[in-house]
């Protein structure tokens, strides 16, 4: 079965052509790879390709989404199966315009500089988050309306958590 796969926003097709235990023949677009691939530790794969030994580490970030580390690089990879395509086709109209402020790492909300309903200018600081003795300011790039504030000062937050919902000014 042919799947779509997205790696750092680059779309390819991927297909398992043959498999015998840990030996597999896989096509990525029109490139054919015969690999010896085995999960040696949880989320860690050892891959032999033309004799060369590769070590790849996976972290599943969501269902069918992975953060993949090779020796010096890191990729976001998403497997797009028929289910995903179906779900994507349904929700695309709904959430496309939504924009959230979020942080890449966990931390603590130090200060929120806006109120719901405020109109802010590109470059304005919206929220300050601290982690590991360092404070980071999160700004908007373009003029926005503060639709909803989802956290309060002093809250402990997860990485990638939605903090503030923004809305484009043109939409109003």
């Amino acid at each position, binding site marked *: 079965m042919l799947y779509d796969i997205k790696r750092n926003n680059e779309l390819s097709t991927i297909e398992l052509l043959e498999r015998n235990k840990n030996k597999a023949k896989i096509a990525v677009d029109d490139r054919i790879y015969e690999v010896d691939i085995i999960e040696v530790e949880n*989320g860690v794969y050892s891959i032999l390709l033309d004799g060369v030994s590769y070590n790849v580490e996976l972290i599943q970030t969501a269902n069918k989404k992975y953060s993949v*580390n090779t020796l010096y690089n890191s990729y976001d990879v998403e497997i797009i199966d028929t289910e995903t395509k179906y779900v994507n086709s349904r929700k695309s109209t709904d959430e496309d315009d939504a924009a959230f402020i979020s942080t*890449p790492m*966990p931390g603590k909300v130090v200060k929120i500089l806006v109120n719901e309903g405020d109109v802010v200018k590109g470059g304005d600081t919206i929220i300050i988050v601290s*982690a590991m*003795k360092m404070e980071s300011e999160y700004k908007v790039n373009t003029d926005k309306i503060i639709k909803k504030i989802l956290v309060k000062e002093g809250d402990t937050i997860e990485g990638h958590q939605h903090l503030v919902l923004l809305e484009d000014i043109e939409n109003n």
Partner: protein
Amino acid sequence: MIKKILVANRGEIAVRVMRSCREMGIKSVAVFSEVDRTSMHVRYADEAYCIGPAPSNESYLVIDNIIEVAKKTKADAIHPGYGFLSENAEFSDRCKREGIIFIGPSSYAINTMGDKITARKTMQKANVPVVPGTIEPIQDLDKAVEVIMEIGLPVMIKASAGGGGKGMRLVKYEKDILSAVSSAKSEAKAAFGDDAVYIEKYINSPHHIEFQVLADNHGNCIHLFERECSVQRRHQKVIEETPSPIMTPEVRDDMGKHAVAAAKAVNYSGAGTIEFIVDDDLNYYFLEMNTRLQVEHPITERVVSVDLVKEQIKIANNEVLSLKQDELVQNGHAIEARIYAEDPDNNFMPNPGLIKHITEPLGLGVRHDGYVYEGYEIPIHYDPLISKLIVWAPTRDEAIERMKRALYAYKITGIKTSIPFLNRIMDVPSFKEGKYNTHFIQDNEASLMEKEEPSQKLKDIASIAAFFNYLERIEERSAPVFKQANGSNWKNCGRKKNLEHL
């Protein structure tokens, strides 16, 4: 005799101190904040007590709580590690009043060295070279211009109570003097409640070189040679090495003598570090003294063959220093790399989180001082230092190769770390040649930030691994049998099986 030590710290340094305690047959007591229950120092210690909530000003900085645990556990001594209360004169005094040995210097030494103007005065009296400049706070703005022009531009305006770059101004032109002094004063006032500022000549292409000293309570004081700490990012040390690649035996000898003189000038006791600023011609000036163990102490330990924590404890035990200056030698070369939980590709943003997988580097010439483990969640409240990788080899070139080998084998997933950045530093020509100063990272930003475009093959391998995992998960779902063959997945499957059969 010290039989039990409370370690008033967390993270790698707490574990490191406890290791030496264990080797000496001394019991260790950990203290921990509420968020640190699962931290390694709690697991490693003989005893462990909670001292308050996560924010350090409600736990690790609360003197009363720490003293209470020390008394309850009948600890003879307290080791403060670095950071937190390690340079707190009040804490040193309080320990003394309570009859507990503080493993560190007296409040007098801490206070004298803690105030930069007082330290400069004391050093000048002890004939230790200080950076040309004023040794009294600047009162009169007009006088300031006169003094600065006498010293010669460029100069630095610095807050006497300062640190971390606050209340600090670089002045290159005469016209900027007045505004720089006023703004430094007001920033100092806001930050430290003290607007005293002083003036230092600005050293071009400065090197940061520090000397380790040890002093006992019987008047003996020695130095254990230098550490080169010029690889810094925003005043944060990144890589340290010893010996310094720019040092000569003559200058080393001179600086060592001045380091000892500096320590003696404050009747120092214990382990301390004299930081010097050094120019390209090896003119050197006293910068400040750190009255505690440094993060980078292991490179000295390796090259001089000494356990600095054991020496601290022996000194606190009132023993006479057994190390003699003329018997100490530097053997080979050591480099330390600090592994931080931060994302070098994203402006070094701190990156706390859950350690999903860790492979530590092993083998010849590698020391690893860390505290995280698989399944441990690094809290958001403290310093992002995860561990320190220390390598040793007979030569500097070989030590660099060894560091690269160790960084290659060191894998942490779940969080971003500085490992790729550290690896790139090892490849920069000026680092390899040992020709660098504190501007190193800034000067080489382009090559340090550049990432090679990976080959199509490597990118496809990443996709293949993810795809294969996806397929295996589908397979597992349709036939959830207990894979025994090669041991992968044993954790999941073991647990899954249990849940089914329970």
